[in-house]
């Protein structure tokens, strides 16, 4: 299990923060972006086939969002199915996605756009 965790930490680039205290949001410990990556890692150690992420880049600046998206990309490249909701994405974040589905109010269907 230990090795398994090491693998996940490498995937989300948390190796250097291994012994760092989580701390309180906005006060001590991990930054918002590092916290987000910890959330992803906590889900990954359960070895899921499909992962849902609710707005992983919201509230992050461009650089932090890029780091989070890189780890999301790493996760996808392990062959998992990843579904993220996004809201007003920057072009860089939008470009990181392979597929986009759009939800309209009172949806009848999900409109699928193959990029």
């Amino acid at each position, binding site marked *: 299990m230990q090795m398994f965790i090491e693998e996940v930490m490498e995937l989300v680039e948390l190796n250097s923060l291994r012994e760092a205290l989580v701390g309180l949001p906005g006060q001590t410990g991990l930054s918002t972006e590092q916290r987000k990556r910890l959330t992803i890692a906590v889900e990954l150690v359960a070895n899921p086939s499909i992962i849902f992420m*609710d707005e992983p880049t919201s509230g992050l600046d461009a650089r932090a969002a890029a780091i989070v998206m890189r780890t999301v990309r790493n996760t996808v490249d392990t062959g998992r199915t990843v579904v993220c909701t996004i809201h007003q994405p920057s072009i860089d974040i939008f470009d990181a996605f392979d597929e986009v589905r759009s939800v309209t109010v009172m949806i009848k269907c999900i409109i699928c756009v193959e990029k």
Partner: protein
Amino acid sequence: MKSEGISENRLELLKGINGAFRPGVLTALMGVSGAGKTTLLDVLSGRKTSGYIEGSITISGYPKKQETFARISGYCEQLDIHSPNVTVFESLLYSAWLRLSPEVDKETRKVALGQFSFQKRHEFHDLKLIQIS
């Protein structure tokens, strides 16, 4: 809302949704504020505790079984909730202890290590179509 002319007690938020999410493909779910993106994820992952969920949810044509689905899915909610007084490593260790099944013995773990990313994936490669009706 009643004063604005809406007479129903319940509002229908999501209905008749079909979608295919493929392994190894990063899919974005986009929509305006209030479109129901979070609601959809909450319902699919089984985290919705309020409101009414009716009808059926099928995955690749089979009805979704929450106990099974919880084992093979992960959900990163918007709010990152973590224990402040543990380290990053401990956070992961506790999650692994609590969520990996007890049958995951040393040998399996070794195998999983080498093929961590692909071994189990293949079993679920047909996990594609999610439908709510």
